[in-house]
Structures are given as C-alpha cells and as structure tokens.
C-alpha cells in the first residue's frame, strides 16, 4: 500500500481537488461532490436539487443530451449521479486511459443548458420516480418520519419533493437555484485509483478555471429530540413497516466511530441484538438500525417490517431492547466482533477505486480531512465501551419519533 499517495490542490477559483493516487490500480474513479441538497431548498422548490441532478445530463452549450449519453458510453464509463439531503454527486468509473476524457465530460455537464423542452420531458421522469417510491415499501413512511423528527429543521424535507412541488417547479426557479448553489467553492472533485494528478489539475485550470466562486451558506442547527407516534393506513399493504428516528452524532462529532459500532451491535442485519430477538425467531421480516451523519446533527434510523398483528409486540420489544442497551451498555465481546466486522469491510471495500472515491470525497466534504485505510481502521479499533456509553447517554435510542404504515391503523401508547 506504500505506493498510495494523497494529493490535494485548490484551483484558483476555490474548487478543491482531492485524490488518492494508486499507480497500480486497474481503474480510475472521479466524482464531483456539490455541497447542495434538499436541506438547501425552500419549501416551494422542494425537490429541485434532485431534479437539477437529472437536468445536468441534458446537455451543455456544446453537447446535446444524446451526445452526453453517447460519449459517457463511448469511454466505457460506469457513471451515474445521486442526490441526498446535503450533497449532489456526479460520478464516473473508467479505465485509467480515459480519465481525462471522463473529467472533461463531467466538468462540461456541470454547467448545463437547462433547455425548456428537456425540462418538461424530464419532469415526467421525476414524477414517475416519485410514483415508483409511492408503490414501494415503506410507502413514504421514511419521509414522513424525517418530517416529524426534524419538524422545521432544514433536514425535514424530502429529497424527491412531492408531485405538487415538482409539478409546479419552473426552469427559472431551477436556474436561480443553480446560480445560488453551484459555486466553484461549493464543489469538491474527488478521485481515486490510477490518477494522473498533475494532468488533471492542468486540464481543470484550463477548462473550468473561469467558474465563479461566491459565497454559499447553509444553516446547520442541531435537531431537537422529539417523541411522537404516527400511524398511517395503507389498505393494499400486506406487512407493517415502522420507521423510528432518534438523535445521533453529527458528521463533525468524533463519537461517530462509536455510534457506527453501536449501530452494528444493536441493529446490524446479521448477528445484532435486533437480529437475534426479532429476525431469528421470525417475529420481524427486517430489523435494522443505522446511524446517519449530517452537518450539525445526526440520526439513528431504525427500519422494522413485521406482520401487522405483531406490530404492538415489535414496538414494545424495540423499546425493551433499546432500554436494555441504554442501561447496561454493550459487552466486550460484542464490541470486538463489531470492530472486526467494520474493519474487514473497510479493507474489502477499499479494493475498488470507485468505493474509495466515495469514501475520500465524503470525508473531505463533511470534514475537510483525509484518512488512509489504516487510519480509518485505527479510529474504529480505539473505541472503548465507555465511548459507546457516552453516545448512548447523549443520544438515547429510546427517545424516538415513530411512523408505522400498514393495512390497519395502530393505536400505540
């Protein structure tokens, strides 16, 4: 691993480029992380970040949408994009010989034309995407739970937006949002694998050096803890789906390593407390708890699926298990196994240039830092039971907002 080298360069316009260069890698991953997402939207333009992500592939002053798609395929790239609450990410994995072509193309599309007729056609695709998730478990319960948990906090809004907000969006509103958020200083380019860093920087200065840099702001308040229970009836559903959200560490909090391990011990898909008490005996179909970190705040989100008649039992069992780990903490053996799990997965994931690229980009965007695979492993290894106890004390799993959706309405104390 000694040949791996980290490079960082800030372009004259403020755009950060970070790369983990490994000359022996078989491929190159590159991704533009734009620090914008649903938390940066006002209610009337809810869904614009994600819609804009689609429009970015729709052509530039020098390329039609068809040319963009064809050229991404011509270089054999595996490319896509996604939008979250606080990031919009455009990425490409290619063979090393195509990295500069891929970079030119991705950089070009980040200054899209936003043609009116493309806007109208793509709006239909977004509405279909919304309809698709309407039909899919947990049938909107996830968005509902986030809205209840976060209340008026900027993270309470859905990434996709609704039929109404997306339906009413205009291309002028989108352009205004683009101009406000896609500042050079609000974008990070992350690369990993076989990277020709010097050539990358030269090409970027030439191609995108003129992108303007201006101030972009974001409110990052900490969310207030909240307890509420909400039940929704969906007659056509066969199972009951329950989403529960409690507060957790933020992206910049050091105890996020402890909270990741706590999540695995309490609610990993396999060999966790929820697994043995809910999945193994067949009481629930699915029971997983995962921490998510955002700027300024974080969550633990649990996703449970069970037979409708067992909903009460599952909700009570969750509270009992959360209460138990809250009062008694975790065991040495649980902690050791969770560390093994997470560290082995870090090593396995690091073998793919594209997954390293996501890791490096995310770390830089959220914290402005770089960590080698060994450093990441070290941080998990150094977590103690006391660290986990502190996370639990600060962020009780028992205090959560719950939303249940299924064939019958649930009355729960």
């Amino acid at each position, binding site marked *: 691993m000694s040949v791996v080298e980290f490079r960082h360069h800030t372009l004259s316009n403020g755009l950060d480029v970070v790369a983990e260069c490994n000359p022996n890698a078989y491929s190159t991953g590159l991704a533009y992380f734009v620090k914008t997402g649903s938390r940066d939207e006002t209610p009337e333009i809810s869904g614009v970040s994600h819609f804009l992500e689609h429009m970015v592939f729709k052509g530039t002053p020098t390329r039609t949408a068809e040319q963009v798609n064809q050229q991404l395929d011509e270089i054999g790239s595996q490319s896509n994009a996604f939008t979250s609450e606080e990031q919009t990410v455009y990425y490409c994995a290619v063979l090393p010989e195509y990295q500069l072509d891929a970079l030119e193309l991705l950089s070009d599309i980040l200054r899209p034309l936003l043609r009116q007729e493309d806007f109208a056609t793509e709006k239909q695709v977004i509405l279909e995407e919304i309809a698709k998730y309407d039909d*899919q478990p947990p049938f909107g319960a996830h968005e509902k739970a986030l809205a209840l948990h976060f209340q008026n906090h900027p993270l309470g809004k859905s990434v996709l937006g609704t039929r109404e907000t997306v339906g009413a969006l205009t291309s002028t509103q989108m352009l205004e949002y683009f101009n406000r958020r896609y500042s050079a200083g609000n974008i990070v380019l992350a690369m990993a694998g076989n990277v020709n860093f010097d050539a990358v920087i030269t090409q970027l200065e030439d191609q995108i050096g003129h992108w303007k840099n201006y101030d972009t702001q974001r409110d990052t308040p900490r969310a207030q803890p909240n307890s509420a229970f909400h039940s929704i009836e969906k007659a056509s559903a066969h199972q009951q789906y329950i989403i529960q959200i409690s507060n957790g560490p933020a992206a910049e909090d050091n105890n996020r390593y402890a909270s990741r391990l706590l999540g695995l011990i309490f609610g990993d898909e396999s060999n966790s407390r929820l697994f043995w008490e809910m999945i193994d005996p067949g009481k629930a179909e699915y029971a997983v708890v995962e921490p998510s970190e955002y700027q300024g705040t974080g969550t633990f989100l649990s996703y449970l699926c069970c037979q409708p008649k067992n909903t009460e039992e599952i909700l009570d069992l969750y509270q009992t298990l959360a209460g138990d780990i809250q009062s008694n903490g975790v065991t040495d053996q649980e902690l050791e196994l969770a560390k093994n799990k997470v560290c082995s997965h870090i090593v396995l994931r690091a073998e793919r240039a594209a997954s390293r690229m996501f890791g490096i980009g995310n770390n830089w965007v959220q914290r402005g830092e770089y960590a080698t695979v060994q450093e990441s492993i070290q941080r998990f290894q150094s977590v103690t039971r006391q660290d986990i106890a502190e996370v639990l004390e600060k962020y009780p799993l028992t205090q959560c907002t719950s939303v249940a959706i299924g064939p019958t309405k649930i009355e729960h104390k």
Partner: protein
Amino acid sequence: MQQMPWLESAALSILVPAGSQRDPANLPGLANFTAEMVQRGCGSYNSREYVDQLDRLGAARSASVTNSHTRFSAAVPADHLTDVLALYKELICAPHLPEEQLEDSRMVAFQELLAMEDDLAQKLLRELRKRLYPDPYGRSSTGTLESVQAMTHQDIVGHVTNYYVPENAVISIAGKIIFEDVIKAVEQSFGDWQGTIQTELLETSPPEGHHHIQHDSSQTQIGIVYPSIPYSHPDYFLARSAIGVLSDGMSSRLFTEVREKRGLCYTVYAMCHTIKNHGCVLAYAGTTTERAQETLDVMLAQIRRLGDGIFEDELKRLKARIKTGLIMQQESSSSRSVSMASDWHLLGRVRTLEELSDLLDQVNTEAINDYLSANPPQQFKVITLGQQALDTSKAEGDKV
C-alpha cells in the same frame, strides 16, 4: 480458482445443488426453508457461536437460493480463507437442523412471502419467471403460504440428505491465494464430502399467453419475455450484444426512446436471462397507469426493431462498456468468484478474463445482424400488474 495477488481479500462461492428446481412438486419453497434451517447451528457450534466465528474472521457473507443451487458466498481478508472454508464445510455437511427451531424458521419463511407481496416489481418478476421456462426451471424459491405451512422437520432433513451433496456442486475461490495452499485446504475440509443426486427432473410446459395481475398501485409494472439462447450456445455473445445495444448504458435504445425522449418512466431495461439449457430475454418497465399503454407499445417496437439489425457505433460503445466491466472484475475477488462459479455450472468450465476479452473482440456488427435477421425477437408474453390490463395486440403477429 483464480490468483489475484494484488488484492488483500479472498472470496469463495459454494454452489450446493439444492436449488428450487429440486423442490418436490407439492412443497415449493423447500430449498429456501432448508437453507434457513441449515444456518441454525452446525458441527460444534450453535447458531450464535457460528456467526460469531464468521464475524471474528470478518466475513462479508450471503446465502441465497436460485433455481439451480443454494449458494453460500463469503469474502474475507485473505489470511482467513482456510478458516472460513472449514466453517462452511460444517454448515453444508454437518448442520444440526434443530427441530425446536422449526417454527421460528417457518415464521421467517412466512415473513419473506408476505414482504414479497408488497414488492410489486418482485411480484411481477415471479409471475414472469413462471412463463420463461418449462417447469421446474421457472419456479421461484419462496414457495407459497400453504407449502411453507405444510413442511415438516423430516422434509428438511431429507432435503439435506438428498441435495447437500458434491454432485453438481461448485466451489469457486478467487483473491490473494496460492493454488497449492487452497487445494490443500479444500481437500482437508471438503475431501470426505459424499453423495449423489438420485432423482430426475421432469420438464412440463410453462403457462401460455399474456397475463394481468390486478393491483391498486400508482404505477403499472410491465414485463415482456421472449425465447432466446442459453450462455452455452455458440451464438450467445451475438444475442447478448444485441440486448446490450437495446439496454446497456445511457445511450442504449430503450433508455433513449422510452425515458430520454418520451419521459415515460424512471426504470426500463432488458436483459438476457440464462439457465443451463435454456435462455430468454426479459424486459421490464414501471410507469403510471395513464402512460402504461404507450410504454408497452414503445418497448415492443424497440425490441422488434432489433430484427432490422444494429449499427457499428452502437456496438463500439457497448464493447467499451463491457471491456471496462471485465477489467474492473480484477478489483473484486467476490465478483470474480461468483462469475467463475456461474461459468462452471453453465459451461462445465471457466472462461478466463483473457478468453472473454478475445470473444468480445471477435463479435462484429455483421455477425450480430446475421443472427438477428435469422432470429428476430418474437413469441412475446406480456405480463402486467396494476390498475388496468393493457392492449397486447402489438405483441402478436410474429414473422413466420
């Protein structure tokens, strides 16, 4: 086996010939139920001790039942390969199958069936699969509420005895390994595994015609299938390339015509589906009720248009994408071990990445177009799920 000395990991895939094609006709889902029971303790471990061991080794793992096999896969830091092999040997050859946990297992199987009822795309694909191939090759792994209710401990024990055997089983290993060491380790753990398959498979014809499932959903799920050729067929890569032009990548025909130009849906794709002796093409889209008819018609028109051939630039783009995929397989011991196991099952040998690359170089537009002209897409079956049945007349009228 493949040595990939540049990696830190090693991955194994074990295919045990207990696929859903071997389920007794009156007990569909038995292989799935059995796989669930098999993971409840084995050898000297109870179920908790067993997964603790796997976690101690840092094994990223999965177990699944396909039509032909029950598959156990795991990836570990390479030093742990021998230990993890020994653990899987216990699981496959010495499962406890604890009778007192039978009802827990049954509940797990029920839950899986119920959750699938809520997953409309899965529900559609299950119906589609029934119509792809002669029974038993079109069976889904999960069975029915009735069959799961009827399964006894004796059925599970019998299924392990009959089908957890080395005949038609495959062990595939890739990663930072040394051949001699792995051979020794496999000999040591699996060398005394015994048994043969005693039953014959009986083929019966799949249901004919189109089919609609009524469901109160926002979107209509659309599935189209038609016959093609299996992976072992000499023309397979010609057929596969044609479907690549239809569906691989953002400049493919389905993505361009259905999504980009008309905005009809978010998800649309087609793929070659293959089992050992049969193959077919399967296409899917999900779209809101009002636009479902147009989506079906455009999909059928694009599939039929393949009969007129493909263009040079389309193939060139496809080849670039496939080449990237082949080279990137070198970054993952897991995906390599899965591909090798699948090759062995379908072909009786493994195609190396070099061989695949040569095969790719040999594919050309003329050969594909000759193939398509002799074998135009036809004999469509259309399966839909949603608020309204669709007009399937455009799926009729094959060239004779």
